[in-house]
């Protein structure tokens, strides 16, 4: 069984699906190690977008003519694909948004205006992306609520005792990241959700970095909200998903007003459309949704088993190899990690390292990774981050290690 699964995963064949991996950067074959920022796209997704615009484009949910109906069908089929992909109970609970950032803003604003009041609290963690900090700060300020932050330990794991101590009946929502983009930590979201539910507190999970690597079942997690971006999971930019339990979405006021989200409009009173359309005002990103559906199909064809196994191999290989470099310190050494290795090299500024790697054709991210409070926690200006997708191979990591060695020689 194991053997067949491995045979099914042919890394060379997969790499050929991604045209960008054949490109050069600064005259060198590109070594792309920044998939956590945004992944590359397989030809299947690119072709589907091309196809849609060439042969299938019309506005959705409006026209009586065939072309519009076909576009609507393709659009709604993609919603069904996403629903199955995350095992949501109903299509009503799958809302298309621009990305993870918009998903969080939607909940913060809409849930917040309905359920968060003076003296209430919102609980996040110290390893959140700015997009899971700022929207909560905004709504807390508006509603006179308190933003509580659960601390992170030296290894980059949430201090669960501290989190549970901050979780009381004043907390109206917990919002946390499934997989940290800066550290790679996989958080025990299921345990946290169960604990919050004992107090009837809903939980939003920022799944931006989880979906590309691990199978997510929103029902098994019992997450109240789960959001992610298409562009990090091999789909187009500008499209993402917010899953929300119907019982919350029904009670929440609309986020944006406009076409599509209404049932009837008079100047005196507007009634809103049903879920999920209530939260999808205006012409949606039709091609984005269709491209996202194709990305889901592509990921399913590769298979999460293969993805996880291959990426874990890469992660342990990279961790081992990087540790050999003198003065290199890995930031984020949690027991459970996904495809991210963040590090600093003693006496070397991340910016310098990134600039030299760039000239060697190696794309990594440097800086604070939109997690400034987390960098402050470790008292570092930022890190160099290498992140993998299933299309990376060991040769990519060897190139990275050789590049770092070369850069460090120059910089020290």
């Amino acid at each position, binding site marked *: 069984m194991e053997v067949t699964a491995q045979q099914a995963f042919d890394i060379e064949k997969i790499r050929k699906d991604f045209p960008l991996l054949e490109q050069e950067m600064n005259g060198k074959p590109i070594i792309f190690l920044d998939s956590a920022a945004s992944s590359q796209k397989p030809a299947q997704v690119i072709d589907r977008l091309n196809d849609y615009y060439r042969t299938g484009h019309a506005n959705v949910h409006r026209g009586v003519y065939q072309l519009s109906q076909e576009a609507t069908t393709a659009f709604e089929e993609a919603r069904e694909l996403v629903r199955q992909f995350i095992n949501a109970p109903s299509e009503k609970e799958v809302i298309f948004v621009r990305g993870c950032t918009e998903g969080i803003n939607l909940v913060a604003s809409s849930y917040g205006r309905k359920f968060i009041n003076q003296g209430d609290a919102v609980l996040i963690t110290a390893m959140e992306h700015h997009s899971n900090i700022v929207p909560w700060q905004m709504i807390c300020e508006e509603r006179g609520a308190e933003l509580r932050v659960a601390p992170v330990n030296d290894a980059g794991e949430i201090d669960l005792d501290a989190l549970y101590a901050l979780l009381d009946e004043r907390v109206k929502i917990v919002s946390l990241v499934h997989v940290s983009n800066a550290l790679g930590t996989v958080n025990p979201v299921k345990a946290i959700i169960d604990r919050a539910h004992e107090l009837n507190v809903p939980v939003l999970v920022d799944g931006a970095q989880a979906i590309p690597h691990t199978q997510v079942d929103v029902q098994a997690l019992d997450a109240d909200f789960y959001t992610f971006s298409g562009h990090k999971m091999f789909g187009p930019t500008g499209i993402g998903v917010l899953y929300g339990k119907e019982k919350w979405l029904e009670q929440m006021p609309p986020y944006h007003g406009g076409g599509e989200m209404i049932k009837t409009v008079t100047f005196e009173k507007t009634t809103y459309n049903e879920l999920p359309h209530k939260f999808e005002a205006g012409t949606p990103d039709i091609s984005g949704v269709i491209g996202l559906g194709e990305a889901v199909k592509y990921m399913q064809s590769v298979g999460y088993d293969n993805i996880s196994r291959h990426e874990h191999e890469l992660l342990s290989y990279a961790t081992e190899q990087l540790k050999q470099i003198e003065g290199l310190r890995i930031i984020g050494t949690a027991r459970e990690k996904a495809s991210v290795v963040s590090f600093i090299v003693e006496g070397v500024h991340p*910016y*310098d390292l990134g600039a030299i790697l760039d*000239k060697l054709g190696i794309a990594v991210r440097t800086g604070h990774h939109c997690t400034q409070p987390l960098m402050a926690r470790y008292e570092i*200006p930022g890190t160099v981050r290498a992140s993998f997708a299933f299309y990376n191979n060991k040769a990519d990591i060897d190139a990275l290690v050789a590049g770092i060695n070369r850069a460090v020689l*120059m910089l020290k």
Partner: protein
Amino acid sequence: MNQINSIQDEIIDEFAFFGDWMEKYEYIIDLGKSLPLIEEQYKNEEHLIKGCQSQVWLHADESEGKVDFTADSDAVITKGIIALLVRVLSGQKADEIAQADLYFIDKIGLKEHLSPTRSNGLVSMVKQMKMYGLAINAKSQ
């Protein structure tokens, strides 16, 4: 030709010798070591130009309508580029600094380091250098 441009041309000639990027960067890193460093007392919040990626400190002194710059950065490539900017602009007349067209950056292939997306503090630093030039020039008239 004013001095600013002749120094720029000099730098362009120097860089023409390098075969590849690694040689260029080695040279830039070396240049950083000769940067006239900002005095400790000025290395504070007031003189800090914050970039997302790297930080830059800049100080200006004027004498007789000319401006002398001292600076520093926490990243060595940034520091080397600052050394080039200081070499071109420091000790020049305030009005010429304010109006300088820094074409050498592009010519030696360092334009990307001065793009706002790099967010390394260099773009703001060049602006700041010119602002000093403007302010000192205005004062002396």
